[in-house]
């Protein structure tokens, strides 16, 4: 999670609601992706998943 000095630049999370469906498609700045039908679960995943590349500022 992000505390203290805060997050680094370039940390962008995106969630697209897939048109014609009830599904949300999330993508993390690390490249990881996730599909869900609940926004609470989606943000939960976004913040707790194992990032693909270990970030240098951690």
């Amino acid at each position: 999670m992000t505390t203290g000095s805060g997050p680094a630049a370039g940390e962008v999370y995106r969630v697209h609601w897939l048109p014609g469906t009830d599904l949300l498609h999330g993508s993390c700045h690390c490249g990881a992706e996730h599909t869900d039908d609940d926004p609470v679960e989606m943000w939960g995943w976004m913040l707790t998943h194992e990032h693909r590349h270990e970030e240098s500022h951690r």
Partner: protein
Amino acid sequence: MTAFARNQWYVAAYGREVGRDLLARTVLGEPIAFYRTEDEEQRVVALADRCVHRRFPLSESRLDGDRVVCGYHGFTYDTTGTCVYVPGQRRIPRTARVNSYPVVEQDTFVWVWIGDPELADSAAVPRAPHLADGENWTSVSGMEPIDADYGLLVDNLLDLSHETYLHGGYIGTPEVAETPITTEVDEAGAIVRVSRHMDDAECPPFYARSTGIEGRITRHQDIEYLAPCLYLLHSRITPAGQEAPAFHTEITYAITPSTEGSVYDFWAVSRDFARDDEEVTTFLHDFNHTVVMQDVDALNLLQRALATEPAGYQELSINIDTGGLAARRILARLAEQKQ
């Protein structure tokens, strides 16, 4: 209760509200008295609104030049909040001072910093340049206080699907609630972006009557929420079948927590069309004020309902809440930071 993020800039007033009469505003629970200096600079001064003597509100006092003379027993403060005169004696106690807050006047707003003054960076004040750009934009604006947790206003503005229901016949049409959104969170900038692009939509009266469009439209709503205070809604309206966006409207909100259960809702509508048309200006001001009051009434009501709920009540979130949930998390992070 949504926690306050103290080390942030907040809009306390429009520049036009601050002059040679003291203005009282409470920001993040701190009562503040605002006024403008007499000199050429006409600088905005923000002093704690409680006299150090017996806590009389300085906003109910008078100015003597650039000094505030307390309306109760005459303690007199300079623009830094230092007491420079007490009645009847020559020794002024060393602790006789009130807090003075960092202020930036920019984009027609008076921004104030409540947190650690060491951290106040005037270059970091978020921008809404269209508000001061009379060359290219015509703006109408106002402010309404709401008796609600400021988080409820953030929720409201991040989820515009409510336009269809709460503002039907004004700015809402069926397409708003029906069209999927995309949400983007920029962690470093504490920015939440929510976009809703409607390809074939009814033109609501707000736009029909200001633009003269009669048929269907392409309607783009692109929100940028620069947490915690500034909210920009970039609205693009194009008559169906046309290529480029013909009508740009910038809808600006500043969300300033006043006390734990109240918030200032600063609102503005800026347009790049019919810029000199007074009738359009009056229409947009009055119509948008009506829309804002629909939200004010709803949030006052919602806050009263929530106050009677037992602690830890359950909410249910669906896809339309994706942006609002992101904003809540950002606010919680900002509130934890550097306290």
